């Protein structure tokens, strides 16, 4: 630390960040949000079709849902070791907000309950309220408190990789698909 103190340059001011735009057109935000998420291979589902999707997903599948109106087959209360989530096929969670410029959706431990859940599940559904859409990451960080819980994550698509000859492959380690229900 002494070395840093003697070697650091003279004072440089911390810049102030630009303010958010004053008026926001929610339809414009939704259009951008849908467009950028579709480009990252995310699909959209109308909220009224969600129950049908879950029903058709498969009777023998392990499903986790934090939506009161839509029960899963696995109760998170019974989980005390994250390894017990290894067999989860489908997870349905709320996201706190969505970012129009890049499709990122914020989940804290309040929404995901177990940190590994949105990563270990084979397929993920996120429920986003239209009213929570913000234009940019600047606005998003003003809206959330990153240390409200011990862990929080922005999710902007299904897990992916392009490490083999730049070929895009969906489903690297995390979810093989991401569905967003915008309501």
């Amino acid at each position, binding site marked *: 630390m002494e070395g840093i103190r003697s070697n650091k340059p003279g004072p440089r001011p911390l810049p102030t960040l*630009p303010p958010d735009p004053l008026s926001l057109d929610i339809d414009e935000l939704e259009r951008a949000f849908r467009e950028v998420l579709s480009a990252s291979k995310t699909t959209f589902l109308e909220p009224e079709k969600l129950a049908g999707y879950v029903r058709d997903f498969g009777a023998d599948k392990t499903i986790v849902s934090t939506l009161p109106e839509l029960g899963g087959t696995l109760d998170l209360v019974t989980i005390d070791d994250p390894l017990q989530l290894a067999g989860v096929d489908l997870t349905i969670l709320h996201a706190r907000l969505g970012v129009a410029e890049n499709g990122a959706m914020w989940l804290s431990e309040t929404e995901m309950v177990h940190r590994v859940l949105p990563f270990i599940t084979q397929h993920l559904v996120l429920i986003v309220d239209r009213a929570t859409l913000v234009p940019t990451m600047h606005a998003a960080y003003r809206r959330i408190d*990153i240390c409200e819980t011990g862990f929080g994550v922005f999710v902007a698509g299904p897990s992916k*990789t392009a490490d083999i000859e730049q070929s895009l492959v969906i489903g690297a380690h995390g979810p093989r698909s991401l569905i967003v229900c915008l309501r």
Partner: protein
Amino acid sequence: MTTHAQRAATFLEDGPRTDWHDKSLWHVRSKRDGSIAGIPEWEALRQLGSDIKDNVLSNLDTYLEEFEQRATANGVIVHWAKDAEEHNRIVHGILARHRVDRIVKSKSMLTEECHLNQYLEEQGVEVIDTDLGERIIQMRNEPPSHIVMPAIHLKKEEIGQLFHEQLGTDEGASDPQYLTEAARQHLRAKFLAAKAGITGVNFAVAETGGIVVCTNEGNADMGVHLAPVQIHCMGIEKVIPRAEHLGVFTRLLGRSATGQPITIYTSHHHKPKPGGEMHVVIVDNGRTEQLGREDFRNSLKCIRCGACMNTCPIYRRSGGHSYDHTIPGPIGSILSPGLDLKKHGDLAFASTLCGSCSDVCPVKIDIHAQLYKWRQVVSEEGHLAKSKTIPLLGAGAVLSRGGLYNFMGKAARTALNIVPRAVVYNRFNPWGESRELPEVPKESFKEWYARTQTPEA
């Protein structure tokens, strides 16, 4: 000891492969250009990123202290390491205390720099790199050739053969989808069996005492959320002042790196999981010394996006391994001479000084200007190769004497047109190995000017 030029020459022996490598990287650079086109305020955003990082460097001590204090209050155990050896000992100490014999690790250039894998393996710990590209090169026993795309130098057929040998995939299969699925199954078993997870750190927030890790695959999260012990390793320069600054850097990073508007996962870790332990190891390893070098301290602003590599005409046509340093490309060439001038000084010459690296850098590091300055340091310290010093002595003698310059120019114009080719292009002229002189003009510019321009009355 080989030089960058010699290692690049080996890479260039396979012409079609060099072209393929060149095009792959340029494709990523083009994607970057496409994604920033949608951000009209891009240049202002770069300036903000640069200004915040300048402020970080000028307050590095206080931000690090603030980070430690907040992180400790969050229940995180913070460690300080002055060099690679101490870093490795600290990490192994944590693992030994928990009797951990197998770990999973996500991408971390810092642990590459410290050669952590080798150290832990010598202590009997199994280390599995979980980023697909990193796992591929780990199986091949190779270092990464790029900081964002570690296996960018490999063709899918080579990866197919590797997986056939090590993971039992079908012989001759090279479909990326099929190979990625095989790696997913292989690595999922490793995630479930690991007793500790290690990650690098993209940003550490002083205000909140938390760290941020960005991935596309989700491998960092699979590792640290399943294992009871999580360890995050960071260089001292990763700290940023406040949470709101993440808005600037997350906007810059993904677009500059791969042309994505943001990485798929941007994970914010502040407290250990219930019943778990969270460690952050903060490493100096030469960074404080670099901070003291006025001409070169800006290199510490780097956010490791790799944009300077993707755009560099030398990197694209010589490959990451030719740099023989953990961080290759233009940014590696200004970071490494400070660590070992004798070994890495020649990297300052692995550049055309075209400035494209500085143009794309999201935090406006003057990379090409620093390359030029390192050349002067290399020369002053006497590390220039004879093939450079002798011609430079000659050039200096000629250029400082007007008469001699005029005579030599005239002599060369005559001589180059009549002497046999072997007199000019031979083993004493490394410049001519892959370059051709332009056609020799009949007269110099000075002669042409004197002949055609009549003086004003």
